[in-house]
């Protein structure tokens, strides 16, 4: 009996080790499969044409990355310009002003926001938001980077709020008390003392919000207009990196240059998300050390 128990304990220890390590294998496999397929693209297409190419027209075998980068850029800029200020101020409200009851209520609301599937936001953008945008700016179509950015801001706000709120709540009470004792009012305390002290955490939240925006697929696929052009303003229809994969993978011939080109976009996205996460993680560590 004793023996069996000890044996079971030992087996589980090794099994758990194996399971822990297999996480490394999974991410290695993801990287391997995206990379190996993506690299094959460069057998038949030059790297410089890909990176600096100004046109993405799959029918003419033109696979230039720039229009897709520009598309993603506009969507990200719009979304961040809306989500960062609103997200941080909302976090300040939750952390500093809200009563416990309101706090719980706000947190449930914010969680509910993050639970809305992206296809639902795409639907709302398509049938509710695009009409007013079209009329307001007198456009031929309401499907623009702006429309996508607004819906994505909605998606990034919960991420930014919850992480910024956590880092504000984690601050030592003495910061606030010292500032108030010196005669600063609550707003001065927030902007001069609390925000700078919580900056690493807030910045990490913004980075993770950025990660969500750049990686979001369905919403942008449905409402950014799907046209891979070098857009000069957010009022133009665009196509993002993610939307290109989603829109074209369905009809592509497996093993063709076009097929591999989509995996190459995958590599680009993978690299962007890897860098974003590493930066965010670094700032989260910094916030914990405070």
């Amino acid at each position, binding site marked *: 009996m004793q023996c069996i128990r000890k044996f079971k304990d030992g087996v589980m220890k090794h099994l758990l080790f194996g399971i822990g390590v297999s996480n490394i294998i999974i991410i290695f496999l*993801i990287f391997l499969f995206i990379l190996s397929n993506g690299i094959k693209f460069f057998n038949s297409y030059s790297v410089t044409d890909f990176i600096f190419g100004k046109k993405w027209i799959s029918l003419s075998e033109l696979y230039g990355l720039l229009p897709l980068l520009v598309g993603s850029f506009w969507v990200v800029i719009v979304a961040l310009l809306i989500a960062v200020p609103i997200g941080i101020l909302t976090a300040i409200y939750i952390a500093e002003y809200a009563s416990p009851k309101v706090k719980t209520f*706000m947190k449930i609301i914010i969680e509910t926001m993050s639970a809305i599937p992206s*296809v639902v936001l795409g639907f709302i953008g398509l049938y509710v938001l695009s009409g007013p945008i079209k009329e307001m700016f007198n456009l031929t179509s309401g499907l623009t980077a702006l429309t996508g950015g607004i819906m994505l801001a909605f998606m990034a706000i919960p991420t930014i709020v919850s992480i910024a709120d956590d880092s504000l709540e984690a601050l030592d009470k003495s910061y606030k008390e010292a500032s108030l004792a010196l005669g600063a009012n609550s707003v001065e305390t927030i902007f001069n003392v609390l925000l700078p002290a919580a900056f690493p955490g807030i910045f990490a939240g913004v980075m993770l919000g950025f990660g969500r925006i750049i990686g979001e*697929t369905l919403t942008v696929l449905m409402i950014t207009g799907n046209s891979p052009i070098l857009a000069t303003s957010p009022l133009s229809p665009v196509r993002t990196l993610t939307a290109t*994969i989603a829109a074209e993978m369905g009809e592509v011939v497996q093993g063709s240059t076009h097929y591999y080109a989509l995996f190459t976009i995958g590599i680009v996205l993978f690299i962007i998300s890897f860098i974003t996460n590493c930066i965010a993680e670094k700032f989260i560590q910094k916030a914990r050390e405070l």
Partner: protein
Amino acid sequence: MFILKKSKAKFLENLIKIITLISVIPIFLIIGYILYTGIPAISWSFLTEMPSDGMRAGGIFPAIVGTLWLTLGTIIISVPFGVLTGVYLVEYAKDNLLTRIINLTIINLAGIPSIIYGLFGMALFVIFLNFDVSILSGSLTLGIMCLPVIITATRESLLAIPKHLREASLALGATKWETITKVILPAAMPGILTGVILSISRAAGETAPIMFTAVAFYLPFLPLTYWDQVMALPYHLYVISTQVPNMPAAYMSGTLFVLVVITISFNLLGAFIRYRFNSQK
């Protein structure tokens, strides 16, 4: 340094409150819109019939069933694997290079865009392992996507368990594994459960990872095994709102309503468990 007169401070304070209001109003508008347009479109036949007339009539039964299959498959794959990884990281792993690499991979798994999971699932499960476009491929893809959230939730809830619980159990002669299964895991259950529910709710609403791994455009019958293709609610909503011309609005808002009710109720359940548990403490 930023110094204010009292009146301006009051103004800024109010501004913060107004902005907060602005950030939460859209969610009420969206939910309101979905309820207002969706409820009249729901009927028993809409929920239990097959789509017909090129998806312009009938119901969404196969999409509901498909979503349930995929969700169940995702749970089967991600929950044991994710919870056990969390247990390993907290209870067994020492702080060495390997552990740091595992932590780094989990952080990066969490940040990978969902469409990349779709590409990966297609390349590995659908093509390389030849599972084809099936519930199995889709569940594996969604399961891997859910891992980081479940691992992190497990890790955080295990770390929150006080040390003396472990010590008491070990002192009574229980082995480490017995301590974990009989003492630690039950105590950490609410936190783990919340993480599981939240990640599963996200998986149920995802479209990008299943587009090329699990779903079919239109399937007027139900799946029989894990090797079959399915229809799924999020992809169905995408298809009928963008690919099918002259789609009746009621059909779309009904589908939208069902999808949102499923994902939000999962989520409220998770929130309920968490706040109930927190208030008990």
